[in-house]
């Protein structure tokens, strides 16, 4: 196998009739951030669970730092940290006790555990709350503690499953900085996300997953270049007017689409584009009722790659217990 920190080849997993992973391949170079991007149910969490040795694959092969997840899970477990989608910390323990527990269970040198816990609590801005039971923490604090817990044994490979879901903006930015810092210190990070922006900010490479398959694997800048860096959406009074406006703009710009009474177009030169189209529309006496400009979203990527919208395919991203029940029903 090649020399990526994480190597995935033809990985398959099904739950009863539901195919969660339909033969995915990707490789994550050491000391980099790799993003798995996809809607709910695409198979991202299943992939992470297999790599973290929580689930066994049905087919294919995956290695972490050269150790096979199926045949030598214990070697993998000694090298990884996992922060799942739900803050998996014990609400009745304090922050410090949670980290101590993880330190003990990751076979750390006993004398190294409490200093490491203190260091992480400091770093994640949890020192003041360190000795309070976690049930008194806010959602953002729990999430930060969850990520801190994954880092206790200084794992060389870190899995983060939708790490910023449910975080407010400052916490999210703080976590992003932290992730970048870890990578500069030598950690390899695999993160899943539903947000193109997050993948773009963090990852050197992104695999887009849809229905258990990798439909694109590239640098985020390349994915975005295919789309244009800016998406403009113009709303009109009704569909006939919108259609006329679309016809007008389509003559002069590539990638103009209409959906109902909204006309959408993407470009790499955002401000210039806006000035041009508004001038053209005004010249033809069209006045849009709404105007929105945004960065391309996961949905835009999906539209560009598959010609359809990102949809939730009822796969594996539910809370653990629900997922299990559904699988049993399907089996």
């Amino acid at each position: 196998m090649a020399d990526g920190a994480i190597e995935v080849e033809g990985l398959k997993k099904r739950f009863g009739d539901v195919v969660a992973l339909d033969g995915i391949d990707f490789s994550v170079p050491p000391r980099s951030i790799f993003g798995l991007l996809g809607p709910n149910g695409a198979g991202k969490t299943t992939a992470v669970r297999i790599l973290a040795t929580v689930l066994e694959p049905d087919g294919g092969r995956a290695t972490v730092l050269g150790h096979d997840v199926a045949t030598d899970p214990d070697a993998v477990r000694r090298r990884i940290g996992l922060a799942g989608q739900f803050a998996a910390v014990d609400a009745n323990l304090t922050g410090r006790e949670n980290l101590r527990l993880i330190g003990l269970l990751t076979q750390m040198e006993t004398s190294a555990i409490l200093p490491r816990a203190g260091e992480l609590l400091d770093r994640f801005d949890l020192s003041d709350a360190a000795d309070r039971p976690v049930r008194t923490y806010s959602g953002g604090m729990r999430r930060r503690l969850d990520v801190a817990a994954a880092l206790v044994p200084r794992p060389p490979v870190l899995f983060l499953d939708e790490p910023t879901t449910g975080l407010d903006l400052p916490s999210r930015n703080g976590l992003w900085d932290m992730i970048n810092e870890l990578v500069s210190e030598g950690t390899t990070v695999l993160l899943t996300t539903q947000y193109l922006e997050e993948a773009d900010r963090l990852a050197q490479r992104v695999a887009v997953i849809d229905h258990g398959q990798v439909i694109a694997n590239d640098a985020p800048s390349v994915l975005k270049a295919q789309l244009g860096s800016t998406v403009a959406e113009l709303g009109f009074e009704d569909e006939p007017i919108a259609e006329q406006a679309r016809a007008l703009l389509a003559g002069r710009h590539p990638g103009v689409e209409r959906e109902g009474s909204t006309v959408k177009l993407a470009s790499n030169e955002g401000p210039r584009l806006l000035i041009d189209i508004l001038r053209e529309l005004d010249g033809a006496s069209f006045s849009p009722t709404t105007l929105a400009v945004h960065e391309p979203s996961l949905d835009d990527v999906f539209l560009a790659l598959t010609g359809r919208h990102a949809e939730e395919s009822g796969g594996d991203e539910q809370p653990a217990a629900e997922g299990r029940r559904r699988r049993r029903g399907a089996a």
Partner: protein
Amino acid sequence: MSLDVTTRVVRVRPAPVRAIRDAKAVTWRYLIHYRRVPQLLIFSTIQPVIFVLMFRYVFGGAIDPPGPTSYVEFLMPGIFVQTVVFGAIATSIGLATDMKSGLLERFRSLPMARSAVLAGRTMADLSRNVFVVLLMVAVGFAVGFRVHTGLWGLIAGLVLLLFFGYALSWIFATIGLWVGDPETAQAAAFPLIAPLVFASSLFVPIEQMPSWMQPWAEHQPVSVTATAVRDLMLGGPDTAYHVAQSLAWCVAILLVFVPLAVRRYRRAV
């Protein structure tokens, strides 16, 4: 690869050493729960105390125990057994809660012994049983219960009782991991527990039950253990036989449910 464990503070320990250390860490975690949420302990104590008062003072007059023993002496060993049976439900709820919260998923991704969560949880429940059972002994003495076989009889009876409680917690651990949801775990416990606790010799002598129920009531593990504990504390001609019967049940339960629970744990996500 330079990014390997050798540069870090993680140690590779021999499997048995690791299994014991990990189980200790998990036990510590659950015992903190009892300190942080004392209600867990208070409510698991109030319920058997209510049973004592109810059976001793309300129903007691209507029940005639066999032989020369008074009803309170017949009742208390039954209450002790009932306490550990009801206590075992906590094992089920605790593990189901951990499963739902995602904690078990995290534990399964750690380089810890696969047995540690179950061993730690059942050890923590055993510690809780020691506390609750000793408290119930004190309550028993307060309402007129007396041991006829001396201190060693009392101790032998309590050890058998705690061993039985430990075996039961593996049944409930399996159920908790099976259902994976605390409310369901709670609901699933009652239909299992009711025939064991009420169609038994815990509160009422078996001779007073309908004849079709008697074979079950006489040989099921809860009755057998209650009889053995009574014999150990009050004395009886067949003590050794009854204790052996109870031990056989405990061992059989462990032989079946330890592997089942561990198997469930390996698959629990």
